[in-house]
């Protein structure tokens, strides 16, 4: 007798959650003992008093919340020239387009229970209604209160009615729920548009449309591109999007073409020489390949000695580095093809960013043009991205068997970790200009970014070191047995495993870095906190409204940091760290 699947008893559906009466629940969770009951009583009184104090603070006639909406531009972009705000919107749309494409990869295709959605709507409604009703006792009767009361009531009805109509296991696509949410937000924005002159609500709607359009574009692209390739393309686009935004779109450089054109053909020549050199080096025997690399190195040094145009020097240096890496990474024809493409992309990017980097900004500002939350994002994202390679090198140096590298790395890491970030920022702000010739003018944003990178690299190095130490020695022995060189072993065996192990730690560190960017306010950059603390409360219309603005800053920082940490917890669960 065979045991077929239809012979088995079908599994029973999971039991419905038992409903516990409110009274029993309270007896179990609030009044389980004399001590617990007393604690509950004390905490309830304290909580009510606290809520009352907060409400009294928020709805006091002394509070001037109305100063915040007119300063939206200050908060988001600081002193960025108001005539060029279009650049900011273009950067937002670039991000929106990439986000739209990435939604295809992130798999926003899950489903969420309707009950959960309507419960969320109802909770939001109850919160709004309670806050609104409680605020009626405060002396200031503003329009916000009626909005809170009526809006809250509407949300409760909207969240209650479907609850009665739908069964509990009805689900809805997450994408649709999100789209509905965005749509609702758009409608609210349309009616609430607080500043009728700037049409920012229209641009937000464009942003939403860009996300949706690129989502569909991504779906189409996915149909005729293999999945890993599409993933790689999107990742690369993300990587270069930030330098493009901050060096090109927002900086609006005016390139002096008459200076650039003479050396462009030479740059093209270096680019063309690249594949030849790489092909040679990866095919020739070791000694001859080393000779080619030696020749390229000599040309590079020569280019610095006779002072060729800077772009050519950088390109030659890049070519030397590529060809030195070629024997390791371009040994098979397949790998060589990838390597040619990386050379093409890498050299084009180098050329592009060099061209933009040397050009002066076309904006009508003095020195620093970034500010507000825009600057905070730049410092956080730039700091994480730039500190990654530095921290990696430091971690490899610290775990290396070569004593001088180890001593240098340990000294750097321990000194940086022993001092507060603010001293590193002051070092960058005050001492770096001293080390440079007088004609080099480094703007504040660059100095702050350098300091944050230098600081974060030391902490990242310690995280990565933890990962490196978690790779078992059997892996090294296996790599050696396969005949891998030290660099192949590091790049292909050690690092992938080490980095995967420390992703949660690195996300935690990224959140800390995001919070730490607020310190640049102390060295005088107009970041988000500085706008809230100094810029807005010192304007004649909003003089002295510092507590309101600081609370806004706290809420905004909190929303970002909290959602990042929640996302990292989900990531941790998905990676299964610590469960193996």
């Amino acid at each position, binding site marked *: 007798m065979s045991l077929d699947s239809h012979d088995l008893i079908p599994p029973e559906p999971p039991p419905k959650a038992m409903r516990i009466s409110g009274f029993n629940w309270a007896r179990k969770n609030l009044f389980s003992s004399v001590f617990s009951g007393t*604690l509950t009583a004390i905490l309830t009184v304290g909580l009510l008093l606290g809520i009352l104090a907060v409400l009294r603070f928020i709805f006091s006639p002394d509070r001037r919340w109305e100063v915040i909406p007119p300063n939206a531009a200050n908060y988001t972009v600081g002193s960025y020239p108001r005539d060029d705000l279009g650049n900011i919107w273009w950067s937002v749309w670039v991000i929106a387009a990439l986000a739209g494409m990435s939604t295809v990869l992130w798999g926003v295709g899950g489903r969420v229970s309707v009950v959960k959605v309507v419960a969320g709507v109802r909770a939001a409604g109850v919160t709004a209604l309670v806050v609104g009703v409680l605020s009626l006792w405060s002396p200031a009767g503003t329009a916000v209160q009626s909005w809170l009361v009526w809006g809250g009531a509407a949300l409760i009805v909207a969240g209650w009615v479907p609850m009665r109509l739908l069964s509990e296991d009805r689900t809805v696509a997450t994408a649709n729920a999100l789209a509905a949410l965005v749509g609702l937000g758009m409608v609210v924005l349309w009616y609430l548009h607080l500043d009728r002159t700037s049409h920012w609500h229209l641009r937000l709607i464009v942003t939403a449309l860009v996300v949706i359009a690129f989502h569909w574009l991504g779906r189409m692209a996915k149909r005729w591109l293999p999945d890993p390739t599409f993933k790689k393309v999107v990742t690369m686009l993300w990587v270069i999007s930030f330098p493009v935004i901050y060096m090109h779109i927002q900086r609006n450089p005016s390139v002096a073409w008459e200076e650039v054109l003479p050396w462009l053909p030479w740059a093209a020549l270096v680019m063309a020489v690249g594949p030849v050199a790489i092909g040679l080096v990866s095919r020739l025997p070791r000694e001859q390949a080393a000779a080619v690399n030696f020749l390229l190195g000599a040309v590079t040094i020569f280019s610095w000695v006779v002072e060729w145009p800077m772009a050519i020097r950088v390109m030659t240096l890049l070519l030397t580095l590529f060809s030195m890496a070629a024997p390791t990474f371009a040994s098979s024809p397949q790998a060589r093809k990838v390597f040619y493409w990386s050379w093409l992309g890498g050299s084009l990017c180098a050329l592009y960013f060099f061209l933009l980097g040397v050009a002066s900004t076309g904006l009508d500002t003095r020195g620093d043009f970034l500010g507000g939350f825009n600057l905070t994002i730049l410092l956080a994202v730039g700091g994480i991205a730039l500190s990654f390679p530095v921290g990696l090198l430091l971690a490899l140096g610290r775990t290396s068997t070569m004593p*001088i590298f180890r001593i240098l790395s340990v000294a750097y890491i321990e000194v940086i970790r022993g001092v507060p970030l603010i001293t590193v920022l002051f070092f960058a702000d005050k001492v770096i200009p001293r*080390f440079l*010739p007088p004609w080099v003018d480094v703007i504040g944003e660059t100095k702050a970014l350098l300091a944050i990178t230098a600081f974060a690299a030391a902490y990242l190095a310690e995280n990565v070191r933890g990962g490196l130490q978690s790779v078992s020695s059997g892996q090294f022995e296996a790599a050696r047995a396969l005949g891998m060189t030290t660099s192949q072993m590091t790049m292909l065996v050690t690092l992938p495993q080490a980095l995967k192990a420390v992703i949660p730690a690195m996300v935690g560190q990224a959140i800390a870095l995001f919070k730490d960017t607020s310190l640049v306010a*102390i060295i005088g950059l107009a970041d988000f906190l500085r706008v809230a603390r100094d810029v807005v409360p010192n304007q004649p219309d909003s003089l002295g409204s510092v*507590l309101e603005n600081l609370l806004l800053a*706290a809420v905004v920082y909190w929303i970002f940091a909290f959602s990042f940490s929640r996302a990292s917890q989900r990531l941790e669960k998905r990676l299964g760290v610590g469960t193996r």
Partner: protein
Amino acid sequence: MNRPSLAPPTRPPFWRNATFLKWAAQIGVLFGVVALGYVLIGEAAANMRAQGLSLDWDLLTDPPGIQLGEGIFVKPDTGMEAFYTGAVNMLRVAMSGILAATVIGAVVGIARLSSNWLASRLATAFVETVRNIPVLVQVVFWFFLSSILFPVLQEGSSGPIPGLLLVSRKGISFAWPFPQETFWQWGVFLVVGLLTARWAYRTRMRRAEEMGEETRPLTWALLIFLAWAIVGWFAHPLAGAVGWLFGLLAAQVGAIPVLVYQVMLALAALYLAWRWIHRFLESRRSPAGLAKLTDDDYFRMILAGVLGTGGAAVLLLWPGITELGANVFQALLEFCDQKFDFLRTGAPLAIGQPSVEVPGRFAQIADTGMTMTPSFFGIWMGVTLYTSSFIAEIVRGGVLSVPKGQTEAGYALGLRRGQLLRMVILPQAFRVILPPLGNQYLNLSKNTSLGIAVAFPEMVQVGQTMFNQTGDTIQVILLWMGFYLTISLLISLLINYYNRRAQLVER
């Protein structure tokens, strides 16, 4: 014999030799780093000459011409005094902050695990709110809150608790037992009391473990300490003998020639280096014999030897260093000598109560009570609450790390809940908690540097005020680094010491 002929072993050319390549790369990079430093420092020297600045330490001895918000020297006469004030202010915030953050963190961390729904939810809300807001925002917020929302100070203000607590925009003043000039003499009794209490605790504990009877070690220790404190309160002039001892020692220290100290210290340096090398070689030795030493091992031993010999040479060649040390030690002993006197009487502590004075047009808080300025309040509240949210998570993690079987076993042995917590859970949780706790203490100490944002005169704020006056940024930054690295080192040494003691001794 037809064994396959082996090719004669040839050494690879030196440019293919791994050891040679490694060292070439290292020396090349070292050379690059040194060269870069040389170029940068040369450029900095040229720039500073052009601006009329120099890399000397005159800023420590010159009158700085600055005024500090609070501290020992409000109008310092030398830069040294200014930095001393900043360092003491920083330590005040750091130490009181560490104490408060530990208590709050422990309470919140345990509350998060409470079976009381309200308590655990409130603790969670506290942690999730506080740790996701940048600490600088919190510092600035508390500062402005206290200087905007607190009541205005007027003549006749007496605060929420008259005579004990006075809250105003000028600061929070509270009653405080201030040490008097006889405090040091009483302190001797307290130290002796602490030592005897510790001894009593240990003996009672040992007896409890051996005999299995309830010996109440904590009660005994507390009572003994209290007895010493009470006796000392009245009998403290007896401790004047300690001063006489210190005076004798100081005279002895001054009488010995510097050369003796120099030779002793140099010998100690050489001995330490020798011991390190010896132990290193021992660690490389196994029953099978001495392991093959790599070039890295040789480098380590040579470095230890060079450092030891170099240290000894420096000590012998420059007697000034040793002399300075001996002088400081002697001055310290003489300072202690002055704190004790048989004839000094009076209570060691006197309670000071907060009060208001009106020296000019505006009311001020008199310095009769202990006063927390708005700046101090801001930085203290900010760093304490921020750090306590992290400590709460550490405590929670530590308690959760104790296996559930331990709790069940404890109950099975008939322990009460309190005993279970004290004797089973906490000692094991403590082991997990300690290392990250030390990290949080380090973070708190470093975060006190944010006092600059609320004009609290700690190290960084003092330094910034100084270099705004003199332009000596490089010197100030070197001072900061020296200071914070010392603090970090001290805290990690302390934590490592306790950590070693708390770790499981594995066989």
